[in-house]
């Protein structure tokens, strides 16, 4: 389909004030990252002996990987559950996953005290460590995602043979992706289970692995709504509301199970007493559970809001915000330690990496056949 390639090359780059800002912020973030590598964490962050993990771990790593769960969920829905009607969003979702994991790896390179030794994960093993498992899963899953995404590239370059090879192993790749994701999404929760006395009881749970897995699935699906919203707003692709509204129908189920188990745990263990005590933990818990769980359930259960562009987008924002709040509450705000607010350098790297992700996504949308059948409408608007 040489014609398609030609059409795609023509796609206008959305160069406006917004996009210029994105480029500037990305450049600033990269600059600060280089500065941090030269002068160290002490000179650039507000981290301290009493607060060894800050914004980069709780937000960029834990939330970023959680939000990238759409890649394995949608891949499973399409290829394992054989619900082909969702095929049009597969490529964009897998790309988002690939970018998110790349960003998580980059964040790790900024956050590690000895980033040049990240390869030590390969040669020094400690099977007791949740982080060891996460490290391996992320390495392998990045490879899987790259392979899952490679057909788009081969398609654009019109390389027939590699395309054939990848197509032949698609299903094993998808199954590997689902398995690796299940492992590390839940293990991110396991990572925090070893802190029973440091994380506030309202946010600590032995069921972290289950909670992290369920919320990642919900937020990953919500992320696909956000991607479509972005693609339609920026590139004039049609907002696939009918398809997306069917996809997000799953979210109330997943979040519903999560909500019930978490509340049940609260009462079975007697932790609800902390709610009655009030204070910041109780308030944040209620905000997290209502704003990040109940509100999305309501948004996506009601066909009226679900089939409305604003309704579905807001629902997605609440779901994603709920996951971020959950991770930040457990791994930062309500984890014992010294007072901490991120430094401007930490914020600059976080914002910069997010902008870098946007740039990568937009480059792919511009140069690659991201949406398998470019509709005549979309082509016309270029």
């Amino acid at each position, binding site marked *: 389909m040489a014609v398609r390639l030609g059409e795609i090359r023509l796609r206008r780059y959305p160069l406006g004030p917004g996009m210029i800002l994105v480029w500037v912020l990305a450049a600033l973030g990269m600059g600060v990252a280089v500065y941090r590598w030269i002068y160290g964490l002490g000179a650039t962050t507000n981290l301290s*002996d009493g607060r060894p993990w800050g914004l980069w771990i709780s937000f960029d790593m834990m939330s970023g990987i959680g939000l990238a769960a759409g890649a394995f969920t949608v891949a499973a829905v399409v290829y394992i559950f054989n619900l082909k009607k969702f095929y049009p969003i597969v490529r964009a979702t897998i790309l988002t996953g690939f970018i998110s994991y790349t960003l998580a790896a980059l964040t790790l390179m900024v956050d590690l005290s000895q980033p040049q030794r990240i390869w030590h994960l390969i040669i020094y*093993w400690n099977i*007791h460590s*949740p982080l060891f498992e996460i490290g391996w899963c992320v390495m392998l899953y990045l490879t899987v995602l790259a392979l899952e995404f490679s057909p788009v590239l081969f398609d654009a370059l019109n390389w027939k043979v590699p395309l054939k090879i990848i197509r032949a192993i698609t299903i094993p790749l998808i*199954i590997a992706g689902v398995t690796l994701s299940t492992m590390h999404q839940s293990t991110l929760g396991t990572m925090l289970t070893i*802190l029973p*006395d440091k994380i506030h009881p309202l946010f600590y*749970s032995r069921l972290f692995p289950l909670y992290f897995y369920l919320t990642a699935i919900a937020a990953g699906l919500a992320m696909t709504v956000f991607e479509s919203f972005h693609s339609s707003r920026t590139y004039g692709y049609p907002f696939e509301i009918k398809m997306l509204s069917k996809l997000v129908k799953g979210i109330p189920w997943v979040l519903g199970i999560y909500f019930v188990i978490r509340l049940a745990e609260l009462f079975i263990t007697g932790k609800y007493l902390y709610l009655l005590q009030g204070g910041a933990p109780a308030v944040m818990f209620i905000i997290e559970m209502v704003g990040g769980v109940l509100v999305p359930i309501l948004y996506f259960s009601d066909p009226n809001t679900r089939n409305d562009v604003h309704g579905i987008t807001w629902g997605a924002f609440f779901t994603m915000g709920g996951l971020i709040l959950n991770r930040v509450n457990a791994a930062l705000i309500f984890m014992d330690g010294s007072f901490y607010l991120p430094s401007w350098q930490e914020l600059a790297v976080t914002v910069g990496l997010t902008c870098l992700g946007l740039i990568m996504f937009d480059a792919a949308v511009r140069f690659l056949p991201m949406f398998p059948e470019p509709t005549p409408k979309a082509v016309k608007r270029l």
Partner: protein
Amino acid sequence: MPISRRDFLKVTGAGLGALALPAAPVSASTTEIATDATASMLYDSTICVGCRACQVACKRRAGLPPDVDPSGLYEMPHDLDSKTWTIIKLYKDQNSDSFVKNQCMHCIHPACVSVCPVGALEKLESGPVIYHRERCIGCRYCMAACPFSVPKTEWEKPLPFIQKCDFCADLQANGEQPKCSEACPTGALIYGTRKAMLDIARGRLVGEGNYVQHIYGETEAGGTSMVYISDLDFTKLGFPEQSDVSLPDITWPYMQGTLGVIGVMVTLSTAIYLRTHRKDKNGNNGNNGSNGNNQPPKGKEA
């Protein structure tokens, strides 16, 4: 806070036992036998006079630079940090005062050793928890996971390592005792096997003196090599209210479950794949996804 977290966690542990994967309870008898002979130190805060000979001896033997004030004179460090492996602190209120020594507790079941992804921390059978800096990638998980917040890092350096007390493992291997206990002039800090230290501690608790009837470190976090007795409440001396759970025992069952997760997810995905694609072969419109109407598009398999 009316509810103490320590009391609370006991309730939580009991309640969750049925609900979650429970941490395998460590049988007390096996732990006792395994740990009786390990190296240990007893610190009795009622004897310590705060001379800080231990602190100086530690810096000298570990080659740690002294803290200096702006004019270059030596100054007291304020807390454990990358240049201070042990420190003597003073607690004081209107009625009472007491010194207390901080250093790595050398847990029987160290969280730091269990969480380190590259195995840079190691629990020696003889007792010490030691650090292999050549392996460290600097994730700082040990710092976050340590219930006593002991591992510190060299924030001011571009490529920082972890710093913490190594219990003079090299000296112990030569049959010597750690420099801090060797330097102690009053006997507030003594060195021996864990059984001997606990026996002495128990003896003092029932003898004269106004001791709090608790040996800190006997059961905290599953037991530590450093054990403490005092006539003041341990929270006043800065010790955390630590549950008795052996922390690595919380995560290990989940890690062991990984193989199960792999098995279940691969089997389940394959089974669902085979089932949803069976219709294709019968020519039963499996290709266009219209068969999906009877299945809600959930992303959740397990």
